[in-house]
């Protein structure tokens, strides 16, 4: 089992960024009927989301968040020894975007820089890796960048996905700290569900061709082509209702901690009904369950750091909080973590 333990390592700064351009779902009728829009807003909780224009990539959102964070924390660029970029919407298919960000941020050439292309579980997986690096004696600071532009992945005329997604970016600093912070991770995978969220065409299994670019109308009325994302919402819901609570039980047992000791439960913001269902099952009180989905939609792996900044930024700046994190998504891949954040530096949400 991929259960990890750390101590005296922690998150000391988090920044998040979103594009300025807003999409108001209530105004998104036309392809969707008013009834479909109303029902989707009600069940997913997504009233508004942000959309990056064609000049803004996930890397740009991360770059803006990173600059704000480095300034807020007064970090010298040469203190960063590792840069991890989590994204499924990189600048190029080759090379990785991590090296491009290393250069753009003016980090030393002795910085380790690479990408992780996980979806909803990506932030928690990225944190696990960041903590692992930070444990090394020679590593001073790890910069975890997590950015996504899912509005460029899915068709706006997709009955299941057309109203769900928003774009965003984030930057997190992980480093050694001088107080106890028992931290636990549980990392999981199930490739049997690889088709539950996927983009069929445009990779090397089904290379880009006239066929993968052909726009098709599907049984449910969705209009998209095979190089756009597809979600089986029912299959995804079945997965989250089963596996996320089971992983919570696993990590709390492993950590030997009580559910009551947690101040905030930060779940990936996929859709409100998914998180409500998990919260109901695990008896998590509302005041420990921050939501940002009404403002930003489903921003894939960015939703966890974005929720930290936009919803509980003041609490994280002020006090020591014990937090639980849970990311889940395409792969299928899911991960949980328990850690503390003590008076973290958090710049105001950046808009670009």
């Amino acid at each position, binding site marked *: 089992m991929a259960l990890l333990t750390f101590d005296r390592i922690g998150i000391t700064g988090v920044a998040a960024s979103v594009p300025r351009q807003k999409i108001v779902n209530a105004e998104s009728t036309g392809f969707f009927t008013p009834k*479909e829009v109303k*029902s*989707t807003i009600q*069940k997913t909780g997504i009233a508004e989301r942000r959309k990056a224009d064609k000049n803004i990539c996930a890397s740009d959102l991360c770059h803006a968040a990173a600059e704000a964070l480095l300034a807020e924390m007064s970090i010298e660029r040469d203190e960063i020894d590792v840069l991890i970029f989590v994204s499924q919407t990189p600048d190029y298919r080759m090379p990785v975007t991590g090296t491009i960000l290393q250069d753009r941020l003016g980090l030393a050439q002795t910085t380790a820089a690479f990408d992780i292309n996980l979806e909803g579980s990506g932030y928690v997986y990225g944190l696990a890796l960041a903590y692992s690096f930070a444990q090394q004696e020679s590593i001073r600071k790890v910069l975890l960048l997590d950015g996504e532009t899912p509005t460029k992945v899915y068709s706006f005329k997709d*009955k*299941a996905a057309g109203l769900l997604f928003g774009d965003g970016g984030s930057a997190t600093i992980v480093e050694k700290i001088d107080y106890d912070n028992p931290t636990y991770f549980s990392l999981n995978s199930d490739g049997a569900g690889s088709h539950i969220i996927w983009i069929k065409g445009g990779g090397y299994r089904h290379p880009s061709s006239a066929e993968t670019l052909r726009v098709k109308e599907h049984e*449910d009325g969705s209009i998209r082509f095979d190089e756009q994302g597809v979600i*089986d*919402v*029912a*299959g995804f*819901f*079945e997965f989250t*209702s*089963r596996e996320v609570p089971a992983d919570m039980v696993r990590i709390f047992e492993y950590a030997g901690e009580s559910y009551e000791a947690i101040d905030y439960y930060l779940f990936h913001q996929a859709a409100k*009904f998914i998180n409500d*269902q998990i919260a*109901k*099952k695990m008896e998590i009180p509302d005041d420990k369950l921050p939501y940002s989905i009404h403002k930003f939609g489903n921003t894939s792996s960015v939703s966890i750091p974005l929720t930290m900044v936009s919803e509980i930024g003041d609490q994280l700046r002020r006090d020591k909080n014990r937090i639980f994190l849970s990311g889940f998504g395409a792969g299928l891949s899911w991960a949980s973590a328990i850690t503390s954040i003590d008076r973290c530096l958090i710049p105001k949400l950046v808009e670009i």
Partner: protein
Amino acid sequence: MEQFLEQLVEVLEREDIDPEDEFRDYEEWDSLAFLSIIAMIDDNYDMVIPGEEFAKLNKVIDIYNYINNHHKI
């Protein structure tokens, strides 16, 4: 059965539901209604019906029977 019908009435926000109804014909039926039913069954009967199993169910009574066969109501 009575209790199950009441639970369905609540999640589908539909006044009259008959066990013999083909629920996919309801005006209220959509992918989110489907999720609400899966969630309601998870809440009340502590079971998640897999999507491919649910696809085989057509009438309201089929759902009831499925739950009954896999869990004591």
